[in-house]
């Protein structure tokens, strides 16, 4: 091996030395766990409509139940193990969003309810909220402005 002199040479060398994440395995686990969570959601949805709920109410009930389960599992120190195994599979559905809010709330409880729980609760989910809401406002404007011209 040649001696390494520049930062670029070192960066290339480190990239070659550092193992990559097992992408295939991670994708497979994310696929089936994510699919399973969505299937559970669909079962709840179908059950609600079967019991006579309209689609909007059924969707709301699905979200409430999945968020509730995710928050409970986060508190029981189980969700992080699922997340470690499934990655995006448990992160992308609403379960991941619930986890990203509950986990800092638990972590920062030691700094008090106002500045700890209240102040830090959205440290992980904050960017999702800001850009999610901004994007929906933008899309809303783009969707309605052209229509109002006609």
């Amino acid at each position, binding site marked *: *091996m*040649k*001696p*390494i002199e520049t*930062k*670029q040479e*070192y*960066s290339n*060398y*480190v990239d070659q*030395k*550092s*193992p*990559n*994440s097992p992408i295939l395995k*991670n994708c497979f686990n994310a696929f089936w766990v994510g699919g399973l969570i969505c299937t559970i959601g669909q079962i709840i949805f179908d059950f609600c409509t079967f019991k006579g709920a309209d689609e909007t109410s059924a969707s709301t009930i699905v979200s409430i139940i999945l968020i509730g389960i995710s928050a409970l599992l*986060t*508190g029981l*120190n189980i*969700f*992080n*193990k*699922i*997340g*470690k195994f*499934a*990655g995006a599979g*448990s*992160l992308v559905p609403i379960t*991941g969003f619930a*986890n*990203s809010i*509950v*986990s*800092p709330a*638990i*972590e*920062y409880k*030691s700094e008090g309810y106002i500045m700890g729980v209240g102040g830090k609760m959205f440290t*992980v989910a904050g960017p999702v909220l800001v850009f999610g809401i901004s994007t929906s406002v933008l899309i809303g404007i783009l969707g309605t402005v052209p229509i109002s011209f006609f």
Partner: protein
Amino acid sequence: MKRVGTQTITFDNPPTILETSSIVGPKESQGPLAKYFDQCLDDEFWGEKTWEKAESKIIKENVNSVIAKSGIASTDIDFCFAGDLLNQCISSSFGLREINIPFFGIFGACSTFVESMCLASVFIESGGASNALCATSSHFCSAEKQFRFPLELGNQRPPSSQWTVTGSGAVILTFSGTGPYITCITPGKIVDMGIKDANNMGAAMAPAALDTLITHFRDTGRKPSYYDAIITGDLGYIGKEILTELAETKGYNIKNNYEDCGVLIFDKENQDTHSGGSGCACIGTVFSGYYFKQLKEKKLNKILLIATGALMNSTSSQQGESIPGIAHAIAIEN
């Protein structure tokens, strides 16, 4: 005491490492070195309400333990050098606020343990102190909270990431004793080779370790084979491999006698610690628990201890800064 070469100091009356003590957390207690530590905790909170309080308690109890083991009164300890990873080193200063020994709070990230021993040695050799205490701590949970994400967050750790050791290492150095002696120190320079990935600390710190290693050999005229063991603090599997290869390109073969505390402290396969252990307590506990006993039993007689640190914080990472590394070396001989 005199300077040799560019940055090494050798001692005429080398300070003795009188006693060490180590406390480790539950995960380390299940690792391969568990039997060497003085105390193994089965609860990461250790009865406290916060991670920070738990870490303070660990360093406090460990300091009490090393003083008790040494047999000297705490009033005979002239200075204390301590540091940790939390902002403004609160674990050390809060944990040791009742100890009543003049205190130097130092920060060298994970290199703090050897940094504190370097400073204490110079104090003792210069006659400024007869006995000095050095202590460090780190805690997986408080470090994750400060540097990364909440513990309960369901995310994945990349294979190059390392696991912060929960625990504390403490040593007492004294001016006269029967060894093991700190014969020379090589404080390191800050080296930044542009690595920005905070999940690859080993790669960020390895160039600093290389710089200090080579400087030490050049300054002292020693060769790698002079030492029974060359030990780095927390380069982990990736950093260890990088240092071994880079040293070879510079003409130093350390393959046969080189170990890394981050590699030794955990069982990579069964403990899911990816690239190995890290944190101030990594080299602190492994030296205090394992290597000091090896030296006392004369199984090892000459070791070079190199603690490596990544001098960054979460703000510098978010601002896209690269990670400056540092490494301090001390030679310990019987």
